[in-house]
């Protein structure tokens, strides 16, 4: 990461940290949700952008995290902080099994297996009423304080800082991961899996590992969503969300980590703004996607960096 870019990202984090001072509560709610979705989209980027594992079922991670977190908050006295990370860990453990099965296949079949898993969880969430609340979902999920009477996270602002900390922490983990030798192997799989195998790497193990990490972080996003919204329902597991998060990654710019976060924020803002301007927001939404594919295939972050680059070059030549 260049020094300029690092300075930019640090200043963005500082601005985000100062946001509760200046933004009205309503905007803070939107911003919190955007950051949660950003974390969710970034987790998918590990699979999609860096390893070219196209998951059609990433909602499974989000929903699993949300339900696990919601269930534990509703039925135990465990503090929020433990539950959130516990739910993420649980999602990551389940993902080892999911990854093991899904990586039996490659290409479109891999996508379809991930979709099948997500839909299986969706079907279960409808029927396992005693745990999931069926079609009503889980409602009234509390933000349990603790441990030792620590209750800073129960307020809306406190919770926002938890979300921001999770996003920054996850970003640093992902960034270190993709820069490490492990990340190099992932990119090798993306560019040419056969060659990577020929170099002596057991690519399947790497793929299972990246699925587990991506699901754990996706589960973390879901686990943050449940106490943020106060509910968890079957829509969090529905394929539509899997499609949407894939779109966020692509619109933002895949394989960049930052891009998907921007994509998620853009997605939320557009949905919010368009739906306040016009009833037919989905129509314009769809047209915007099509326009992105046609005119800005490298996504928001790709366009932004190219633009910055050009600006720098032109100042240098002048």
């Amino acid at each position, binding site marked *: 990461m260049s020094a300029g870019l690092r300075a930019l990202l640090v200043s963005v984090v500082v601005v985000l940290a100062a946001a509760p001072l200046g933004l009205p509560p309503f905007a803070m709610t939107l911003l919190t949700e955007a950051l949660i979705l950003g974390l969710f989209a970034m987790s998918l980027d590990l699979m*999609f952008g860096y390893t070219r594992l*196209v998951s059609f079922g990433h909602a499974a991670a989000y929903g699993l995290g949300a339900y696990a977190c919601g269930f534990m908050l509703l039925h135990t006295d465990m503090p929020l902080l433990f539950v959130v990370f516990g739910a993420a860990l649980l999602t990551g453990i389940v993902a080892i099994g999911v990854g093991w*099965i899904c990586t*039996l*296949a*490659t*290409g*479109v*079949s891999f*996508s*379809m*297996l991930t*979709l*099948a*898993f997500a*839909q*299986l969880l969706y*079907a*279960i969430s*409808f*029927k396992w009423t005693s745990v999931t609340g069926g079609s009503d979902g889980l409602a009234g999920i509390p933000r349990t304080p603790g441990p030792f009477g620590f209750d800073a996270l129960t307020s809306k602002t406190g919770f926002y800082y938890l979300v921001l900390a999770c996003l920054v922490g996850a970003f640093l983990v992902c960034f270190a991961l993709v820069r490490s030798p492990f990340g190099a192997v992932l990119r090798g799989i993306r560019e040419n899996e056969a060659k990577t195998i020929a170099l002596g790497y057991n690519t399947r193990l790497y793929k299972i590992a990246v699925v587990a990490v991506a699901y754990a972080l996706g589960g973390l996003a879901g686990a943050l969503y449940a106490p943020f919204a106060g509910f968890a329902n079957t829509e969090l597991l529905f*394929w*539509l969300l899997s*499609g949407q998060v*894939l*779109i966020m990654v*692509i*619109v933002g710019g*895949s394989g960049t980590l930052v891009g998907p976060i921007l994509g998620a924020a853009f997605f939320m803002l557009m949905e919010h703004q368009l739906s306040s301007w016009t*009833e*037919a*927001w*989905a*129509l314009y*939404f*769809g*047209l*915007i*996607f*099509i326009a*992105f*594919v*046609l005119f800005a*295939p490298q996504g928001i972050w790709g366009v932004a960096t190219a633009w910055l680059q050009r600006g720098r070059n032109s100042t240098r030549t002048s």
Partner: protein
Amino acid sequence: MNTLAFLLTQIVNALSQSALLFFLGVGLTLIFGLMRIVNFAHGALYMLGAFVGYSLTKWSGNYWVALAVAPVVVGLLGAAFEFAILRRLYRRDAHAFLMVTFGLALVVGEAVRLTWGPDALQVPPPDLLAGVMFILDEPFPLYRLFLVATGVIVAVAIWQFLERARLGLLIRATSQNADMASALGVDVKRVRSAVFGIGCGLAALGGVLAAPLVTASNGMAATVIIDAFVIVIIGGMGSFLGSLIGALLVGFVQVFGNYYLPDLALAFMYLVMLAILVVRPGGLLGKEA
């Protein structure tokens, strides 16, 4: 009700369900086989077919007119979309199509809601098919039998078309090797437009045929698209026979599952799909993907 009659009516029920699913699945699989595109808008086009069918029935007072015209209208729209947008993307990554067809699904879904309103609309079946017939003294809706018959006719027609018609031959050749077909003088671009149009038209045909059974509603797109995916995946992406087998399998699992294991029916469908994919990652009749 005696067991044999019950079993028979359930089987015909399942067959009629399979027929509807087949119209969806076969279009999706043809499009995938030829262009390697997963068409996310397929469910939306199915829904569009149902609504266009509703308007045509109302306008002409004749369901048969709707049945004949609605698939053509939607098919032409599909071909136009291919011509205007998809055609620019064949050199690009597969995820470009994912996004574009996802966008199309949103646009079509919203356009339907704006044009026809948010309420479910009743499409009455034609008088000829409104009654019941008796299977071993059990009443059975004639319309479902009609669906089974249509399913058989369309399946045979598509099969004969692919095997015998010149365009069918070109479709098979282009699916196998687009570059080689192009080198031999096949206008691959036109074949692609045609297949995308035909696939969308078949989805719309499914929509028009489903409308008298389930009404035309805004929610119908989201539920059927996944069924269609499941069928195509089970059968093998790009395989015509596979989509037929997939449709039958899913139709029977849905109908019998709903009766015997109502709690597990939905999960059971995905378990079947997972099991098949684990054993054969390319689907039953697909090439190893």
